[in-house]
């Protein structure tokens, strides 16, 4: 999995925006095509007998574009396809796209795990069973050319 995160090899460029596409470096097919996420099973992807934490997820708007907020990367995932008028249907789309985004490991917060997790945890969180463990061999980064002052 680490191979696909090769672009995260340095401190990211700073921006005032919170766009998931900017952070992860690419636009995904489920952002442009509603049918890609239509099969996502919300009940199976969440703990308990209802949709649990996804109850708080709804379709929002960022820069005038429909978007769902990804709390794991603190960013908006913009969606570029026509939205239904019904709010409940829009919210369901937002939940399915977000769950697919997380399950596929495309959230920037998940991508950072390989580099920055300080204790073992499943890379893909609770959304995918049998996910690889990240953070088992974390070592403090060393700044090249820097040494602690002698006291």
């Amino acid at each position: 999995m680490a191979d696909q995160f090769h672009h995260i090899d340095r401190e990211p460029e700073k921006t005032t925006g919170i766009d998931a596409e900017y952070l992860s470096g690419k636009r995904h097919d489920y952002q442009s095509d509603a049918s890609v996420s239509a099969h996502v099973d919300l009940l199976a992807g969440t703990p308990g007998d209802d949709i649990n934490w996804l109850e708080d997820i709804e379709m929002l708007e960022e820069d005038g574009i429909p978007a769902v907020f990804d709390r794991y990367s603190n960013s908006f995932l913009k969606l570029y396809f026509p939205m239904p008028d019904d709010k409940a249907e829009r919210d369901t789309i937002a939940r399915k796209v977000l769950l697919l985004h997380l399950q596929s490991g495309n959230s920037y917060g998940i991508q950072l795990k390989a580099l920055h997790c300080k204790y073992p945890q499943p890379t893909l969180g609770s959304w995918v069973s049998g996910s690889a463990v990240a953070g088992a061999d974390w070592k403090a980064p060393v700044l090249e050319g820097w040494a602690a002052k002698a006291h």
Partner: protein
Amino acid sequence: MDALVGERRISYDARGLSEPNADVPHVSEIAGTSAVFDAKDLTTRQINLELRSLIYEQGITDVTVRNPGSKHSIGVAILHRANITYEGSLGYFACGLVDGPQITIKGRVGWSSCENMMSGTVVVEGNGGSLTGAAMRGGDLVVKGRVGARTGIDQKGGTIIVLDSVGSTTGFMMQRGRQIICGDAGPGLGDSMYDGAIYVGGKVKSLGVDCVPGEWTDADTELIERKFRIYGLGTPPSFQKFVCGKLLYNYDNLEPSERRIVL
């Protein structure tokens, strides 16, 4: 010495570190995908290391922890789906930061249980301390007894269900999510809340600043009936709904006289 239980049985490092030993104790009895271990002689760190090893590395999906001894910070940061049962009470900050597990606590919990919980379900069979569900972000927290003050302070999502009464300033600075209180609520309910909804089945001692009665909708009925059905809580009582009055949304624009009215 044998009479000591829980935290008092543990020898702590002289420098104040709770447990410098970072080795997984591997004390569980494992059968298939289920595991049971006795936490009586384990430190908080050892218990949490054992839990993570079982769930993350050994593929265990059902864990029972015996004799947790009301130790603090037990079961924090479990970030995977698994059923966890604690056969006893837990101390402060129980099950904080969890993201995915379904937890049953057969006892009481101390302050700040499920603090910053992201997702999953937690059912507490007994009472909860103050700050239950503080800064909770998602999932369901069910307390079958009473809870203390400031329940769901800074709550940003999820559902807190309390079958008995809650203390003062419940829902303080609540920003999102839902609270279903079946018993009475202490003074200052919903003080300075920004959003979300609080349902109260009993009497409310007093409302906090900018907390007002809300309009009941079919979605409220559906939510409460669904949660009661899922957790086998019987027939729900009648509830009053409380929401944010939003008078403080433009606090900086208020005239001094208006501030005196609002505050």
